[in-house]
């Protein structure tokens, strides 16, 4: 990844190692007249930790939501680990296919609002999908869940329900819940934006741990710039539905090439 010496085209075509685990090819997304994503080409290599930054409305969350099949692209091709997730031609009606459901299993997501199941304990939250979706045995699922809870530092909270836990604890359970499905790709949609400032650290610690100790691909939308700089292999700056600039954290944060990136970082890092 060489820093470019001339202005990049608005839709930065980042070609990496031959078999990207995530590939967006000419993906567009329109909300009525509003073009949220404009013919996006975007790739992520296996095991890569990528942070996406940018102003709200830039389309960065939409990328995650399309990957998680929470939204359908208006047009374009999206593949995950070689399998097609979305293949949409403009104007065509999109239906959920078996292929989509199977490919979706490779992806997990951690939400801004945690979205834990309030009527279940932490343990029950974590074993629910492995048992009912992966067909795992209950004993095995519980054992795995206990390990994951210990991993995120919440072993003692196994039998607590979400109302009994702080926001930081809930988010850590949410991470454990996503990990229980052994995804190849884990998406983080502003995981700490809904937390009280003093609880952000404990969640970032867990994410940092994951980044350093696993080869799982991680794609994170965040406003925590210092954290993004610390753990990412690559940082992508998004604005207006397109990737403005992409490169290693050192370059993006210390020596941004694009004017848009510079103005954004200036505004964000001021306070």
């Amino acid at each position, binding site marked *: 990844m060489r820093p470019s010496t001339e202005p990049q085209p608005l839709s930065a075509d980042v070609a990496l190692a031959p078999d990207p685990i995530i590939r967006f090819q000419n993906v567009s997304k329109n909300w009525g007249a509003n073009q949220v994503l404009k013919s996006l080409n975007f790739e992520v290599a296996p095991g890569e930790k990528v942070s996406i930054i940018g102003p709200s409305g830039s389309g960065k969350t939409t990328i995650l939501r399309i990957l*998680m*099949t*929470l939204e359908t692209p208006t047009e374009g091709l999206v593949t995950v680990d070689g399998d097609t997730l979305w293949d949409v031609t403009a104007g065509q009606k999109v239906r959920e296919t078996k292929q989509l*459901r199977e490919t*979706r*299993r490779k*992806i*997990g*997501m951690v*939400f801004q*609002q*945690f*979205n*834990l*199941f*309030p*009527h279940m*304990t932490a343990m029950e939250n974590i074993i*629910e*999908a492995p048992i*009912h*979706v992966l067909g795992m045995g209950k004993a095995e699922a519980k054992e795995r869940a206990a390990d994951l809870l210990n991993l995120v530092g919440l072993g003692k909270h196994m*039998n*607590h*329900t979400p*109302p*009994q836990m702080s926001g930081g604890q809930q988010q850590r359970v*949410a991470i454990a*819940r*996503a990990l229980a*499905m052994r995804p190849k790709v884990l998406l983080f949609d502003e995981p700490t934006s809904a937390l009280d400032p003093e609880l952000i650290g404990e969640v970032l610690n867990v994410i940092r741990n994951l980044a350093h100790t696993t080869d799982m691909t991680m794609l994170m939308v965040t406003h925590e710039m210092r954290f993004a700089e610390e753990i990412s292999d690559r940082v992508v700056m998004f604005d207006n539905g397109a990737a403005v600039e992409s490169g290693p954290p050192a370059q993006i944060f210390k020596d941004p090439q694009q004017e848009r990136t510079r103005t954004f970082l200036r505004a964000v890092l001021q306070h």
Partner: protein
Amino acid sequence: MSAVIDYAPLLWQGLLTTILVAVLSGALCLVVAFAAGLARLSSHRLISWPAGIFIEVFRGTSLLVQMFWLFFALPFFGVQLHPLTAAVLALGLNEGAYAAEVVRGAIASRAKGQTEACIALGMEPALRLRRIIIPQSIPAMLPPFGNVMVDLLKNTSLVSLVTVADLTFRAQMIRSTTGQTTAIFLTILVAYFALSYLLTLLTGWLERRFALDRKALAAQRKENRLMKVGAA
């Protein structure tokens, strides 16, 4: 007052019939409510449209008309229903149509995030509904359901008009035999009031039992007890 005492056994029978009608139609109402409510949420139009029509028709026409239709008009199609059957059917379908809205509303208003979490974990829609969405919706459904049930209980009085021998029917008969109106009707008024009050209490108990943070409440109580005993 003497009429009440003399005819107490008959009134008691009437009360039992009222409760029977209420329980039977209540059960039917629940079944219809979930069937129609869930159907309304389906993304297949072949399922949601008929459900919608059923709901609008049964909510838009009067319960009494429905009851009379099932009892007096259906025979013209060769189907002669026993009065009790026609009554329970009408009550169950009518109140079920109202309750379907309760089911639909409670489920639809579940925070979008819950559905998204389920999608992220790869859960199919049926699994999602069964294990996650519906259990969470139950607490929200209970208060309006309680109202529907009280309504149903009061509406059981209408079955007296299709010759089902419920409390109101008995009272009318006693009135026409003895001419004593005040005591009889006051008695059954109080009886109905007592029944609806009990029903309200039952709903309240159910609400507490199914509260979402019930486990949290139970755990809290346990911790409090432990703390009182002095355990760590």
